[in-house]
């Protein structure tokens, strides 16, 4: 272990992005996908938060198939009961949430959802869930606010069909947590911490700078307790969940954990995984590294560096007499935080988050009339309240990076505007 945790999980998460901002930006990303593949369609917040809707959009963003709007509308019809979290209650749930049931099922197992068609058995389970949510909020109110914001739906699995699943979630169907038919409120609270941490990670990973394709090139982590081997992304997710569970365990104090609880071992496992992650942090991006350092500790002398590669610059000649416009197939969505997310309907689709300078620059351009760098520079000096030399440097970096990703393109023009 390098050092003791220096901050709580909810404080570190909020420092990277408050939950409300993270969700707002997540919605902007999914709505951008709708702009790309179903232009003109508008989705309510409820619909764009819906796990099955996110699953369907995610498949298209992965380059798998097309967007079926009727399927989205059908998925949104799943009935739920609100007991502090929305619990799937629809008798048709087995088909409506087929995807997460299939993805998390152990081999040879077909978990069945417990629903209102199960009568009093469902009612009894619902009461335990309600009490579990209340207990979570009582034991760790800030953590509950932080994690439950990312849990849109909870599904209960019939105990005789769950195949040993205690709790589960899926990166492909973000927002839904699946748990075994509960026996105690603390089981529910622990499952919401565990899987809520994963849901938080899924949202962080698509909105902030967490992991990229290089994570697939790293050696697998092998844990000491079951000798399971995980790729880096899963290792980071597990570390994050164990860290949240360890913090919850401290808050829970003398509450007796259940027989399958991870609370007694969470700190030791978080430490084991965190130490391994620190040894491999060169492939983590800035925000995941910040989370790791903030919650696990930093190696001595650790510094964040600024990219010298992605901050592409343009030659003076291009800047002196350059004109740019948006690439014609680029679509832009702006979150209420001000951040812009842009997409191109390539195959597979390209999705990009822009920093504040790049968000501003794309807002000045369109895909028809070229805009001169000269004009951008004069506007940038005013917008950024800075002198010309500094504004020019920022513009070079920003325009160069946007052009290198083909989000904007140089344009010929017969005369300066």
């Amino acid at each position: 272990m390098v050092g003791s945790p220096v901050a709580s999980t909810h404080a570190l998460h909020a420092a990277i992005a408050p939950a409300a901002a993270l969700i707002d930006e997540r919605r902007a990303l999914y709505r951008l996908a709708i702009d790309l593949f179903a232009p003109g369609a508008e989705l309510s917040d409820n619909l764009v938060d819906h796990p099955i809707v996110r699953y369907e959009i995610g498949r298209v963003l992965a380059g798998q198939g097309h967007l079926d709007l009727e399927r989205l509308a059908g998925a949104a019809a799943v009935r739920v009961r609100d007991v502090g979290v929305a619990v799937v209650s629809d008798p048709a749930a087995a088909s409506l949430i087929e995807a997460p049931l299939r993805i998390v099922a152990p081999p040879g197992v077909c978990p069945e959802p417990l629903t209102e068609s199960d009568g009093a058995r469902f009612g009894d389970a619902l009461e335990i869930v309600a009490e579990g949510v209340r207990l979570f909020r009582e034991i760790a109110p800030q953590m509950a606010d932080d994690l439950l914001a990312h849990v849109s739906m909870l599904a209960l699995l019939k105990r005789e069909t769950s195949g040993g699943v205690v709790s589960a979630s899926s990166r492909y169907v973000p927002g839904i947590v699946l748990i075994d038919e509960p026996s105690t409120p603390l089981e529910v609270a622990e499952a919401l911490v565990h899987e809520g941490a994963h849901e938080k990670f899924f949202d962080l990973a698509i909105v902030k700078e967490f992991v990229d394709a290089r994570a697939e090139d790293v050696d697998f982590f092998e844990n000491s307790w079951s000798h399971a081997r995980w790729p880096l992304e899963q290792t980071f997710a597990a570390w994050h969940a164990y860290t949240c569970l360890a913090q919850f365990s401290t808050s829970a104090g003398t509450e007796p954990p259940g027989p399958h609880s991870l609370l007694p071992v969470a700190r030791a496992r978080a430490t084991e995984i965190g130490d391994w992650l620190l040894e491999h942090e060169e492939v983590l991006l800035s925000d995941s590294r910040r989370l790791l350092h903030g919650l696990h500790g930093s190696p001595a002398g650790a510094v964040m560096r600024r990219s010298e590669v992605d901050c592409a610059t343009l030659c003076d000649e291009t800047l002196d007499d350059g004109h740019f416009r948006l690439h014609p197939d680029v679509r832009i969505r702006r979150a209420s935080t001000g951040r812009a997310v842009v997409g191109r309907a390539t195959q597979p689709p390209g999705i990009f988050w822009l920093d504040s300078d790049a968000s501003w620059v794309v807002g000045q351009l369109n895909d028809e009339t070229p805009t001169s760098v000269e004009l951008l520079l004069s506007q940038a000096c005013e917008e950024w309240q800075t002198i010309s030399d500094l504004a020019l440097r920022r513009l070079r970096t920003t325009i160069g990076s946007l052009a290198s990703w083909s989000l904007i393109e140089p344009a010929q023009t017969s005369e300066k505007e």
Partner: protein
Amino acid sequence: MTTPNEPLRRPQPPHSAGASLPPLPTGAGPVIGQPVSSVDWFRRMPTGGGTVFLRPAEAEQND
């Protein structure tokens, strides 16, 4: 909790389906302050894709 919300139109073909993506900038690393950050989360398709906590007797895949 969920409000059915019928989308308004049928999907249209992507504007330039089949176009290739720009190459990753070589050497782009774990850095701060990049003007453009590519989201490749959806393109990565790890096997399984589930994080499942099983009871200890069945726990080989536990996270």
